[in-house]
């Protein structure tokens, strides 16, 4: 955790960063990109991607996740601490539940 | 109420035990000398002995650490107590990196040393025994253990007979789902002197190895809370010499006799199969008379009932009087939930005449 104190605070204050927020047009452009990515995802249902399908879906999911979090939730413009919370929570969940499911998998293979 | 097997005396000293440290011997003296037959500190077979030896060693380390730390606490509090009228302010030390590294590294090394044999033994204990072994299937019911010997097609309950000196591998699960009238829950099979416990989980098969070095009656009980009568779910392992075990198998694989017509026993057999409007005994309890294949019932198999010493989850001695009391009102001898959700034995409101006949018949099943 950051040892941030009074001294370092104003630089990260949201008021200062406000000017960098995207404009309406930029938000719409981001949404269009998200729409295209979603279309790509759905296409795996209609077309045969073979072995590439699974990694493709996961990558697309990750990109969408990061875009919504980064732009719509302003993570890119806000203090890094917020992003740390979000990704710590996510990583913690992924690690714990992967371990849990691994216990089931390991035992099933015995 | 339960009368224990009256031979708790001293067991012969094996070579392994002789090699125990003085510390372990002292501990054993305190604990084992006055032990019962369900004593985890008095192992009677290799699958209980190995963990025991390991824990004695770990316990020794724990005792040393205990003495050092508590000694340090006592010494510090005595040495640095404030004396009357002493208002001086002690040196304001904030820490000492060397010391702190020391008490990080040393415990870590000790723990690493403990973890190596621990991990080895985990795999050894869970692997199939190397020698030829006997398989027994264990099924946990509320609230009794059922045993099935696939090699011999034997069903029995509460008391498991095993041959001395032969590894036994238990294949365990909770209530067979096909007859899930008692809504299978988790149990745990535990005979402390022969092996540690292992849970019986519905939908899973778990395994436990055990072996008895000496003939005897080894006590245990369900160790995973399983509802109302969890305390009354006992288990016994009866270890028999090779010859005795063969005789036991022969006895268990012989069909039950059919009593002669007109006797009280025959009347009992009739009632066993048909109680009119009331639920018949036979709807839950199997008595195999050699007709067709054997199969399990909802309740314990009664073909060789009187070959067992205890009944009702092995909490009561199996005597005609106890059996009669049980049939008259099972809930009084063991709390069950037949009226709530059909678990356990119902009160069939038997008349004195019916009780006499049923007890007489059941006594023929040995």
């Amino acid at each position, binding site marked *: 955790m950051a040892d941030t104190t009074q001294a370092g605070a104003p630089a990260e204050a949201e008021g200062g960063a406000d000017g960098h927020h995207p404009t309406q047009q930029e938000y719409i452009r981001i949404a269009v990109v998200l729409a295209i990515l979603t279309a790509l995802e759905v296409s795996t249902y209609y077309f045969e991607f073979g072995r590439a399908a699974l990694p493709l879906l996961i990558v697309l999911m990750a990109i969408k996740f990061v875009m919504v979090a980064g732009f719509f939730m302003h993570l890119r413009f806000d203090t890094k601490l917020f992003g740390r919370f979000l990704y710590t929570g996510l990583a913690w969940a992924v690690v714990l539940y992967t371990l849990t499911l691994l216990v089931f998998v390991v035992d099933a293979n015995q | 109420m339960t009368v*224990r097997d009256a031979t708790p005396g001293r067991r012969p000293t094996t070579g392994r035990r002789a090699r125990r440290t003085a510390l372990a011997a002292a501990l054993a003296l305190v604990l084992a000398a006055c032990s019962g037959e369900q004593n985890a500190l008095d192992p009677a077979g290799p699958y209980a002995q190995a963990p025991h030896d390991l*824990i004695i060693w770990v316990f020794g380390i724990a005792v040393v650490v205990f003495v050092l730390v508590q000694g340090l606490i006592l010494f510090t509090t005595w040495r640095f107590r404030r004396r009357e009228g002493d208002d001086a302010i002690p040196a304001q030390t*904030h820490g000492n990196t060397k010391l*702190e590294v020391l008490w990080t590294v040393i415990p870590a090394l000790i723990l690493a040393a403990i973890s190596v044999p621990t991990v080895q033994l985990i795999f050894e204990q869970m692997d199939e025994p190397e020698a030829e072994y006997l398989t027994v299937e264990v099924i946990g019911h509320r609230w009794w253990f059922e045993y099935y010997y696939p090699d011999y097609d034997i069903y029995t309950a509460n008391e498991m007979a095993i041959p001395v000196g032969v590894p036994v591998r238990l294949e365990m699960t909770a209530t067979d789902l096909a007859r899930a009238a008692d809504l299978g829950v988790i149990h745990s099979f535990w005979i402390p002197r022969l092996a540690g416990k*292992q849970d019986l989980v519905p939908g899973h098969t778990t395994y436990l190895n055990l072996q008895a070095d000496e003939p005897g009656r080894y006590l245990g*009980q369900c160790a995973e809370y399983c509802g109302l009568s969890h*305390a009354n779910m006992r288990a016994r392992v009866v270890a028999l010499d090779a010859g005795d075990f063969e005789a036991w198998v022969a006895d268990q694989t012989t069909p039950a006799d059919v009593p002669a017509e007109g006797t009280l026993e025959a009347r009992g057999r009739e009632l066993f199969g048909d109680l009119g409007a009331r639920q018949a005994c036979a709807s839950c309890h199997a008595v195999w008379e050699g007709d067709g294949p054997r199969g399990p019932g909802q309740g314990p198999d009664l073909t060789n009932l009187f070959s067992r010493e205890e009944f009702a989850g092995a909490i009561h001695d199996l005597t005609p009087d106890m059996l009669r009391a049980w049939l008259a009102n099972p809930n009084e001898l063991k709390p069950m939930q037949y009226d709530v959700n059909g678990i356990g034995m119902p009160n069939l409101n038997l008349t004195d005449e019916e009780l006499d006949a049923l007890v007489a018949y059941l006594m023929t099943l040995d």
Partner: protein
Amino acid sequence: MAMTTTPTTGAPTPRFRPSSREGILSWIGTTDHKRIGIMYFWTVLVFFAFGGTQSGLIRAQLAQAEQSLITAEIYNQMFTMHGITMVFLVVMPFAAAFFNYLLPLMIGARDVAFPRLNAFSYWFYLFGGVFLYSSFLLGGAPNGSWVGYAPLSANAVSNMAFYAVGLQILGVSSLASAINFITTILNMRAPGMTFMRMPIMVWMTLVTSFLLLFAVPIIAVALFMLQFDAVFGAQFFQPASGGDPLLYQHLFWLFGHPEVYIMILPAMGVVSEVMPVFSRKPLFGYAAMAFAGAAIGFIGFGVWAHHMFTSAIGPVPRAAFSVATMFIAVPTGIKIFNWVFTMWGGKIRFTTAMLFSVGFVSMFTIGGLSGVMHAVVPHNAQQHDTYFVVAHFHYVLFGGALFGFISGVYYWFPKVTGKLMDEKLGKLHFWTWLLGFNLTFGPMHLSGLLGQPRRTAVLPEELGGTVELYNLLSSLGFVVLFGSALVFLYNLIRSLRRGEVSGDDPWDARTLEWMTATPPKPHNFDEIPTITARDEFWHRKYAEDEQHVPVPVPAGASVDTDEHAGHGEHIHMPDASVWPFIHTMGVLPLGYGLVYANWWLIGAGVVWMVAGFFGWIIEPLAEGDDDEPATALAAH
């Protein structure tokens, strides 16, 4: 404890707000973290009496073999409620009582970040407890043990729906507190209070809150599943349709193991405050203490399956979790040695508070050592679910957590009330408590290894006379503990009524909370202090001379307590609000609706809570405010 009766002058209050600072309404509407902390404390004492009574019945039943003082059904309800009560209604909220009272004082803040959410947490806790206990009047209390393993608990016949819903309510309370405290610690430290200057108690609050933050949602899911299995026929843990009881165990212990540290870390924080003060030395190895606490929290998440060593898991996970478990002993050991070396070279004053802290270190060590023995998996199979385990976790939670908290009560009682607790009675309390505790739980190590399983309604005669003797000793120990608890209660009430007046700083303490008035005013500090050092207060009282020997600073030179009275009038504090209380009451119909599958009750509860929440958000935090909480809390 005593009420603070300093009136705050302010704008006239509207009808809905309780304006008085006395009477029941003032407590229902309070948003003052100190008063909420006091409410937590008294509620904890009540539930402790309940949980203690249950353990008394358990010990009475097991005092002799084959007894049937109470039926098996009642016994099963007793040990289940004892566990639930002590874990969720006593130890956890006991920690919350300390956090609430002390956190803002220790970091130099006027209140927590969200005062009304804080009240909400308390009311959720209280109603959760009331809800759980109402089950006694509604057909029977939960009877499936505090772990509530499925499928036993996922059965419509069990009383475990109350367990599932009740714990869910308590979980909401904990989660709200956790968010509140983390925000407070990150955001509301006084100027100069860097992370490495925070008292260890604050560190432990932070770590505990993070543990709650990540653990509570997991059990929430497990409980929802259990609840829907039991009441609405879901199939999560029903083996007949392929459901896996192990999933419940994993989810429960993914929460349950961090929960162990949620209970012990706050007590470690208390001890880390008490020991330096009565040794007149700073805490030894501050940084190691802080990071060991964080490490315990972190590793504590990775060892959950060690509660399942005898369950249906294979050798690989058993080995992995065994090794992980062993290494959690390393940071714990660091803490123990650091405490001892805090005393080393000091001038130890054996007040009751100090005695309980030393008792904590000593007893907790025993619990830690038996914990290492559990990690030896092959023998864990002998110890698991026996009285050996019961002994182990009572040495951790009673010998650990409760000793620590009681130490904290003796230590901070003068801060809260302005009066000292009686030391003679306190010492009587300590020595009887220590004796009773060891007499109760010490023999359980032995009876467990001799074959006595836990959660059994009868003590079988076949276990032998030695086991019977140990059980009798345990039951006698309970009697001693009971008497000792009465001494404590008497001491509390007597000291409250006519205890010796303590003054602002009776212990020559080191941290910020002792720098302000005793008892503190509603706004805590007339002026928020600027922090220049760890142990700020100590450094204001003592300076080092040329030989680095600490010498007292002349009185009044820098001690800032009450000189600026009257300064506080323009300090803007949040007003009282009854909305958290009103909002929270809706959880009762909702809860009963979920237990009885009654959609009308569920609907009523939801509407009630939504309406209450609406009332909450449209009411300004303080009158005349534009509901910007930070503005309201600002000094000017």
